[in-house]
């Protein structure tokens, strides 16, 4: 899954400037640039709007059937009724609370959508260790979310 490349390809394919896309989405050109360079990631609402502008399915940008997406959603307990804001607060609290390395690996996977192999290469670690670390962190996150009282 490469959201940055998908957005960049769509925009360049239609010969639209970053400024024009930013205007259409009511965001800054700087933010569009960050999306395309992978430094930041658009939320789902923005992905829907981008897909609408370029008349492509959202799966062109983010495929919900991809493993990384499913892994991420797996962290949310099925009966959780936390609001989006609350969930963000919980997630931030969790990521600040765990070990820096675990946190960084988690962010590389679920924010930047890097593969385990890519993370392993950049951390000089075995891929299996990255997978195990991610698996444990996901379980911890799920447990952490479960313990947050519903609003």
């Amino acid at each position, binding site marked *: 899954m490469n959201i940055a490349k998908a957005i960049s390809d769509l925009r360049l394919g239609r010969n639209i400037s970053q400024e024009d896309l930013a205007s259409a989405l009511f965001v800054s050109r700087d933010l569009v640039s960050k999306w395309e360079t992978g*430094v*930041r*990631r*658009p*939320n*789902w*609402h923005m992905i829907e709007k981008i897909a609408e502008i370029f008349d492509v399915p959202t799966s062109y940008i*983010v495929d*919900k059937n991809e*493993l990384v*997406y*499913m*892994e*991420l*959603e*797996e*962290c*949310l307990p099925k009966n959780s009724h*936390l609001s*989006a804001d609350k*969930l*963000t607060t*919980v*997630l*931030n609290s969790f*990521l*600040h609370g765990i*070990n*820096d*390395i*675990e*946190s*960084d690996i988690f*962010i*590389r996977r*679920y*924010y*930047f959508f890097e593969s385990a192999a890519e993370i392993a290469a*950049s*951390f*000089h*670690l*075995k891929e*299996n*260790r990255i*997978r*195990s*670390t991610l*698996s*444990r962190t*996901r*379980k*911890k996150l799920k447990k952490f979310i479960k313990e947050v009282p519903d609003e």
Partner: protein
Amino acid sequence: MNSSKMFDAMTQIDERLIDRSIKRKNSIINGADGNSLNNHNVFALRKVLPIAVSFVLIAAVSLTAVMIAHYSKPYVDENPTDQMLKVGFDFDNNKSVSGAKIAVMTEKSRINVGEDLSVSVYSVCSSKNEKTPSSTTAKILMSYSRIDQNNMIETVKLIDDGTDIGYTWNGSFEQMKCDDIVVPAAVFTKADKPTKIQGLNKTDGVIVWALEVNKEYPDGSKSTERDSAAMYYKIEDNEVYLKPSDETMELAEIAVVKLQQGPVFMPGVSSNFNHTLYDEYEYTAKWVAPELITLETKSDTAAAFIELYEDVLKEYRACDLDKFYAYGKMTYEYQVQHGEPYPDSQSQYVEEFRRILDLRESRMVIEALLALDFYYDQLTEKSIQRMMNDFMDFAAIDYASASKVYKDASNETMFDMYRGGKYGSGIIIQ
């Protein structure tokens, strides 16, 4: 939109976290991050250390006695940072020596929280009084265990061909390999409920290394030998204190009775059992196993395990467990009172007893497989069989604990009882 909540929440995480991640990645790429998971100095050491290995190996054996002498001391006291710790090679002159031996040495006995631990793992293979094998393969495993957390087992090193790495066979102990391994800082995490172990101050977790050596002989016969070594750790303030232990029996006790979950290296071998899950099955009968199957591990094999598990669990729950444990208690008390096994070892009920025990072990093995972070497609019939064998030992402790009548008995007694030894009824495993 609920299905995208996590996706959106991730897009909103603290930008400092994102920037830190970018910064760490860049610094690792540039080789400037001293706190990266694998310190590059280790690779330099890897080139130097093998030269000194033969000398250090002798020292490791000799100093084992020193290590054991320090064994009963609380490790938080008098624990100088720069002291090298050693564990393993517990050769006993009066007993036959296993064909596989592993020893581990650390550079320090105390590290800072957030610091990686560099260890040297030495593995040797014995050929004394044995015929020369035609091929030898070996595997070094490392397990991280924390008291309140699921654990992991990692294969650190696979040695496909012993002859390729200087392994020679001349009728004596030979160094097989020295591997410098970095235990990442992330492994050392504080437990919510530290446990007192072996008279040591409260302990947060344990790291275990294991060696498994498989030999094949010219006549087609095969043998497998294993050994393991463990090191406990305790986190206080901003420091991680280390304490070696090679008492694998004690480790079993810790894992089963104290840690109560996660993979367990039984004497020389590896197993896994999630005791938390076990309790849930027992007391709430809640079906939770599928939640443990991550997306990475989903496969036809996993599905087959779940199906098998459901059958075993159904049959096990239909058993009269009160009677099962009462029978265990009765035979145990008879043994203690009369000094000989309970005579009714051929009765019809004994058959039922055996059946329940088999079911119980099968259930535990499958639970362990389900709880493992292994990839199911990598499990072989051999590895599953090995786990089954391991659980014969594991189940001994678990059974005795579950019976709740042996709480005053040592683990050794429990094993003996289960195996029909000194205190045993002799009906369980013969």
